[in-house]
């Protein structure tokens, strides 16, 4: 099981190509964190991940898919990742 994130953090899970790009399966990021800031933050940490992985991926928070606002786009009701949340980067699936 994934360990609980430290206080003031959320967990972000990296699957498939996201895991290859970051060389990790999970890490803790400071939270609360507006969802609209997530991809920018990851791009700062992992240069090129936005074009290489994130632009083709979906995102879940606590097992529910969420719409990630585009760059500079102001969502009417902005989603904020909360402390203790489990966020996952979901690249295109390939079961079967």
């Amino acid at each position: 099981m994934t360990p609980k994130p430290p206080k003031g953090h959320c967990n972000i899970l990296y699957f498939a190509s996201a895991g290859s790009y970051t060389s990790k399966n999970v890490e803790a990021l400071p939270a609360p964190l507006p969802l609209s800031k997530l991809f920018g933050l990851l791009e700062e940490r992992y240069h090129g991940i936005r074009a290489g992985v994130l632009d083709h991926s979906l995102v879940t928070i606590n097992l529910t898919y969420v719409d990630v606002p585009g760059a500079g786009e102001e969502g009417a009701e902005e989603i904020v990742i909360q402390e203790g949340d489990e966020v996952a980067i979901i690249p295109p699936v390939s079961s079967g």
Partner: protein
Amino acid sequence: MSTQDDAPDSPAESHLSQQNCHVALTHGPLNLQTITDLIRSPQAGAIVIFAGTTRDTFDAKPVSHLSYSAYHPLALRTMLAIAADLARAHGLQGIAMVHRLGAVPVGEESIVIAVSAAHRQAAWRAGEAALEACKARVEVWKREEFAAGGGVWRANRDGVAGEREA
């Protein structure tokens, strides 16, 4: 085995069941008989079983083995939703879907779907629909490891290779 096989959440076997729907993820070889027995019913006149097996080439490049990883809780939840929708839509007696994770040698089953219905037409249709829905939606990822070294994450959506790695 790569670290991708082992995380973030990877019990040896996990499963969910609800009424006549059974879904599971397992690291061991798939047993057709055991999976079929889950959906046997005296009301069924037909059982359709699909076994997806691992191919030895990708773009004509020899593949040594495949390895699958999953977002366990979400993949199980998606599989169960697919199963329940199809059971209702096709009036199935039962449906079972099991996906293997970790390294799967070439030629072995990576997914088995078994459905039972009163009549064969519903069983055929539901079996095909179940596989297509799985491939489109279930949070499982396949990595093909090439015999010559390196590997690639596949994407069902477009049938092409994902990110290439050295």
